[in-house]
């Protein structure tokens, strides 16, 4: 049963990594605007074509 302690440590480490990622994301403002980034990626970028 002692293996469960190892598993516990591993799972908590992984989970804490995600928590840190979340805190980093929230602090750098990645949750401030949940609409525009999702839509921006759908826009065709014709900028280069025009410049050529």
């Amino acid at each position, binding site marked *: *049963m*002692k293996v*469960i*302690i190892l598993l*516990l440590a591993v799972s*908590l480490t992984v*989970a804490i990594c995600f*928590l840190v990622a*979340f*805190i980093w994301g*929230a*602090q750098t*403002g990645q*949750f*401030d*605007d*949940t*609409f*525009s980034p999702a*839509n*921006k990626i*759908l*826009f*065709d970028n*014709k900028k280069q074509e*025009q410049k050529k």
Partner: protein
Amino acid sequence: MNQSIINIASCFHCGDSCDDYSQLLFDDKKFCCSGCKTVYQILNKNSLCEYYNFNDAAGVKVKNERDAKKFAFLDNPVLAAKFITFANQQQTAVRFYLPQIHCSSCLWLLENLYKINEAIFSSSVNFPDKEVVIHFNQFNISVRELAELLASIGYEPHISLDVDSNITKKHKVLSRKALIKIGVAGFCFANIMMLSFPEYLGLNSMAKDGLSVSVFRWLNLFLSLPVFFYSGTEFFVNSWYGFKQKMLNIDAPIALALIVTFSRSIDEIAFQTGGGYLDSMTGIIFFMLLGRAFQTKTFADLKFHRDYTSYFPIAVCKIIESNGEQYLPVNDIQIDDNIRIRNNEVIPVDGIVLQGKADIDYSFVTGENEIAKVKIGDIVYAGGRQTNGNIDILVIQPFSQSNFTRLWNNDTFKKEEKKSYSFTGIISNYFALVVMLIAFTAFVYWMLVDSNNAWNAMTAVLIVACPCALLLTTTFTQGFLMNIFSNNGLYLKNANILQTIPFVNHIVFDKTGTLTYPNISSVQYEGITLKKNTELVFASMFSQSLHPLSKSIVQSLNVGSVYALENVKELVGKGIEAWENDMHYKAGSSKFVGNNAEINSDCEVWISMNDKVLGRFKVSNLIREDVDTMIHNLPFPVSILSGDNNRSEGYLSGLFKRNIQYCFKQSPQDKLDYIASLQKKRSIVMMVGDGLNDAGALSKCNIGIAVVDNTIQFSPASDAIMLASKLPFFNNYIIAAKQSKKLITLTFIISLIYNVLGIYFSVTAQMSPLVAAVLMPLSTISIVATTLIGSIFIDKQCFKKNI
């Protein structure tokens, strides 16, 4: 895809219906007005028509006439600096608030601004805040030109002094912090729940070596630290502040319960007597924070706290002797300054008219829907809106002392908190006292009987029966309901308003602009059909008249351009007559046109040609659609206040078919006094109004609701803001508020049952870890579920059917 829009006659740009598009065709596309057409042309020229591919008719309707100098004040570097967020040698960044942003097309266009003007390097949109940050070359384009560019494509920046870039930034940092707090609490709560499974299943006694169980427990304790010391700080801080002001606020019982739970859990884990109650402690913090996040959801584009300064233009144009103009902030105006008021601007200070035709619309201040003509040399007062071209005035009072600010010196505006009727607050206070009493009694009892159990019993009572469940109930229910209300067009300032609504027993409506459409009067013509050219003559005649009804009649005739008649005579109090093409035209009272048979009424204008009566125009303020049935069905006494004269009383009482107290010719002060007199009779008054003239009454009454046509529009300070289109469903909101009171009571009862059970077990000192572990999460989760289901039910019952 775009073809489908063209089949039905709707504007290609904004989607409004356009019946008369013959002159507004461009590229085979129909437009409803020249404004929309111009935007299309600009976009077309810069090959930005992709804009229309993301959403059908995505455009924002542009008002036709725009004052060319509206943004001229941005040439003043001090004023422009309010919008600049960053500047160096190569580039400048400005931030504008554009309330029109609503879809992905807006996003696309605003991020492609660099295609329209080469001086713009880039622009980025913050969608939820409706803001755009533009980086540009300050040597090739000015802030003013940028604002004008945005306005020309339909996104006119919303300019007001309280859009202070610093404030919005602070607000954002705070909400990020709140998000992280919830995230941390949720993470720890979920992990602690998982690690507590051996405890729930009673495995601790079965484990062969004691080590593994205590590892779980210590891990739990470790995980609970960030929740207790980071996420939960606001409960301690708030209750400490309350404590310092000698008040037990709503956070105090929570803080107490958290401290007791946490210290007892440490005790149990350290001495290996049990697993503690960390799961329920973190759970309560997590759910409380979540519920509060729902409740404090801010409406970024709505402003509830407005004082009079926000009604004025941000800058005024001062005329300097050498025929120059200079833009000054309103507060810098001094006596004897010579300032220019543009068409449609609000006059910020009292002054003497020097030049121009001063037709001042004081409806904002007085509620009277008539335009005052002020002669040169006479005084105009702050708060009026100029409606006929530019005027120059000589300032006789500085901004802060103008006549207009007098209303705000009324005590009502020296804000004391409005009395709210929150029954949950009262009950939870009593509840906290009762719980403490029980805990203490249990402690004393067990000290006498078996002192080993005393501490256990007392702390168990405090933990299990803490009023958190009750508070959780209200925070969640109110949060859900506020969301439902705002989805349906009623934005509440805070949750207390929701609790006060069911107590309301008198509703006061403002008439002009609230029950009626602002600026639209309905004009009906009865009589012989007029020929085109006769109609034109009458329209020209009315356009030269000073009578308040004339303007509405000209609008209703819709003849296009009128011309100046030469032989016109206006007889004050009677009518107007004109000689044109050897014909004699008359318009005015029935007596004036020679029709003695009919009794004259105030809102009728008769017309005649060569002394032959043609017919009459009936003018009435148009009541908003379906408002009549709404008022008819309201289950309270209703009063209607109006700044207008009483000519519409007969019409209104015919329409509403019920007993209504009418008060006409009410000044803002009269309205305030009327509310006060109702409150003296112990009525709980809800006031529904729209203009500045209702501002006093709105803040005096128990619940003030400001009616707006769209959320961008200015509204006076109020407790709630309502979309005018939702006014017919007014009753539904009141029913929903009453239902929500029932829902809160129901969840209260549920949590009380849990509490009584919990207290029974803990007082009798037979609270096993298993019972506690099952009972507490169960109570929290079942309460949250009940409020959620209940709110959805209310939403369905009160709103989905009709709205």
